[in-house]
C-alpha cells in the first residue's frame, strides 16, 4: 500500500499548435486529499482526464494505482470514481434513477437512498436532470463518482456553482472520504477550499508544475506578513519607523489604515502598540494578516487577466 496513488512523469499533451501539458511530473500519495490548482488553461483538466484514461500520454507516463489508465482500464475503472466538470447524465433521467443505475454497475455499491439523503437530493425525486439547478447537477455528479466505493476519486471542480451550505456539505464529505481511506484528487479555483481540505497542493501554469507542497508550507515560504493598524487618519508615522527594526516598512494605505510590513513577531507588535500609546492614540483595531494561498497563487501565476 506504499505505492503512489497517482504518478505522472514527463507528461506532454499537445492539441494541434497548443501545448496543454508541457513536461509535467507530479505524484499523489495514497490516503490524501490533493488539490490541483491553476488558472484556466493551465492543463488541469487535460492532466486529470489523462489519469482517467480518456487519452494516452503523447510523451511521458501516467500510472494510477500502479496501472496504465488506458491499457489496464478494465482493472482500473472499478477502483476509480470520476466526477466530470459538467454533464454526464441523460437529460431525461431522474437523479434517483440515474444513481441506482450507476450503482448497479458496481459489485458492492453504497446504499443509494442514504447517499441521496446525504447529498440533499431527496426532495427532487421526479425532476428530470435537465431541470435540476447547476448545484443539484453537481451533487448528482459527485454522488455517481462515489456510489461504487472507489479507492481513488477525481473531482473536477466539485463545488463550482454550489451555494455556501452545499459547499460546506461537500467539504465535510471530502473530509469523511479521507477519514475512510479514500484518496481524493480535486481541481478547484477556490483557495479557501484548498486551505481547508488539501493535504497537498500542486500549482500548474502553462502545462507545468510551478509549485508543490502543503498549503501551510506554500503560504509560509518566504512570506512577508503584514500588521494592519486602524486608528485616526493622518498621523505622522516617520517616528514609528525609527522605533522599529530595520527593514520594516510603514505606510498609511488608506486614511486611518496603517500597514506595517516586515517580520511580524511579538516584539514588533509590542513596539508598535508602545509607540501609539506614547502618542496618546487609542487604536480602533490591530491585526496580523497572514499571507493567504490566494496571495501565493497570484504571485506564482501573475495577476493579469487571462484571455
Amino acid at each position, binding site marked *: 500500500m506504499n505505492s503512489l496513488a497517482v504518478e505522472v512523469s514527463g507528461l506532454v499533451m499537445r492539441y494541434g499548435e497548443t501545448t496543454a501539458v508541457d513536461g509535467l511530473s507530479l505524484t499523489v500519495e495514497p490516503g490524501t486529499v490533493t488539490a490541483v490548482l491553476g488558472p484556466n488553461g493551465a492543463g488541469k483538466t487535460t492532466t486529470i482526464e489523462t489519469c*482517467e*484514461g*480518456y487519452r494516452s500520454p503523447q510523451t511521458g507516463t501516467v500510472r494510477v494505482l500502479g496501472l496504465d489508465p488506458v491499457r489496464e482500464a*478494465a482493472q482500473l*475503472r*472499478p*477502483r*476509480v470514481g*470520476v466526477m*466530470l466538470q*459538467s*454533464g*454526464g*447524465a*441523460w*437529460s*431525461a*433521467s431522474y437523479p434517483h*434513477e440515474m444513481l441506482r*443505475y*450507476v450503482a*448497479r*454497475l*458496481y*459489485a*458492492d455499491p*453504497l*446504499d443509494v*437512498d*442514504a*447517499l441521496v439523503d*446525504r447529498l440533499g437530493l431527496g426532495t427532487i425525486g421526479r425532476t428530470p436532470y435537465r431541470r435540476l439547478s447547476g448545484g443539484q447537477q453537481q451533487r448528482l455528479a459527485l454522488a*455517481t463518482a*462515489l456510489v*461504487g*466505493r*472507489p*479507492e481513488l476519486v477525481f473531482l473536477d471542480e466539485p463545488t463550482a456553482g454550489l451555494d455556501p451550505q452545499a459547499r460546506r456539505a461537500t467539504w465535510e464529505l471530502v473530509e*469523511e*472520504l479521507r477519514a*475512510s*481511506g*479514500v484518496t481524493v484528487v480535486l481541481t478547484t479555483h477556490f483557495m479557501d477550499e484548498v486551505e481547508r481540505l488539501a493535504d497537498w497542493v500542486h500549482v500548474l501554469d502553462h502545462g507545468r508544475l510551478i509549485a508543490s507542497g502543503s498549503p501551510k508550507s506554500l503560504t509560509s515560504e518566504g512570506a512577508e506578513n503584514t500588521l494592519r493598524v486602524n486608528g485616526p487618519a493622518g498621523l505622522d508615522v516617520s517616528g514609528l519607523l525609527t522605533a522599529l527594526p530595520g527593514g520594516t516598512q510603514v505606510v498609511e494605505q488608506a486614511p486611518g489604515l496603517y500597514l506595517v510590513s516586515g517580520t511580524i513577531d511579538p516584539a514588533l507588535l509590542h513596539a508598535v502598540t508602545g509607540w501609539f500609546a506614547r502618542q496618546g492614540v487609542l487604536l480602533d483595531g490591530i491585526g496580523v494578516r497572514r499571507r493567504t494561498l490566494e496571495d501565493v497563487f497570484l504571485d506564482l501565476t501573475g495577476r493579469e487577466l487571462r484571455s
Partner: protein
Amino acid sequence: MTLDFAPRPGAAPVRRMVLAQTVMETRLLMRNGEQLGLALVIPLLLLVAGTEATRVVDLGPGRPIDIITPGVLALAIVSSAFTSLAIATGFERRYGVIKRLGTTPLPRWGLLVGKIGSVLLVQIAQLVILVLVALWLGWDPHGGAASYAWLVVLTLLGTAAFAALALLLAGTLRAEATLAVANLVYVLLVVGGAVLVPLSRYPEAAQTFLSLLPSGALSEAIRVVFEGSAPPTTSIVVLVVWAAVAAALTARTFKWE
C-alpha cells in the same frame, strides 16, 4: 442509515451491467414522446391510412391492407433501429453521458449491447401492436408460423444494419446534425425508399438500386415472407453486407467524447 465510504471497489458481473444498461436505455426511450410517436403513432396512422391509400397511390393488385402491412412493419423497424437510436446516441455524446460511462466498469461493447437490447425490446412492443392492429383491420397474411419466425430473423438482420448505420451517424456528426439527418433519411425512406410502396411499383430502372438499399431489402423480404415464401437470398445478403460495412466503419470512426 449511515454511509461507510471505506473503499470496496469492484465491478458488477457483466450480465448485471448489460441488463442495467438495457433497462435504463429502454426507460429513457419510452419516456421520450417524440421517439414514441416515431415508433408507434406514425406506423399506426400509416396502417389505417394505408387501407384508404388506393385512392391516392396505386399500390398494385390486391387488398391495400395486405400490401401496406409488411411495409409498415419494415418502417417500424427502421424508426427504432435507425432514427431513434441515432438521435438518442447523438445527444448522449453531446451531454457527456457516453464520456462519463467510459470511466465506469461497463465495457464499451456492453454499452452497445444495452443499446441494441433496448431497441429490440421496443421493437417487440411495436411489432406485436402493429400486427394485432393490422389483423384487426383485416390483414390476411400467408405462411403461418414460419412467416412470423422469418419476421423475427429479418428484424434482427434489419436492426443490425440500421443500428450500425445509426451509430455511424451519431458517432461522427454533431447531435443537431444527427437529429436532422436521421429524420431526413426516415422521411426519404418513407417517401421513396421502397418501404411502404412495393418494389414492383417503382420504375424498372430504379428497382435494382432500391433493392440494394437496406430499406428496400428489408421491406421486400417481409413482403415475400407474408406471401408465404422464404425471403429472397439477395435481400438477406444486402442486409448482412450493410450491417458488416457500417459496423466496420463505426468501429473506426466512433468518437466517444
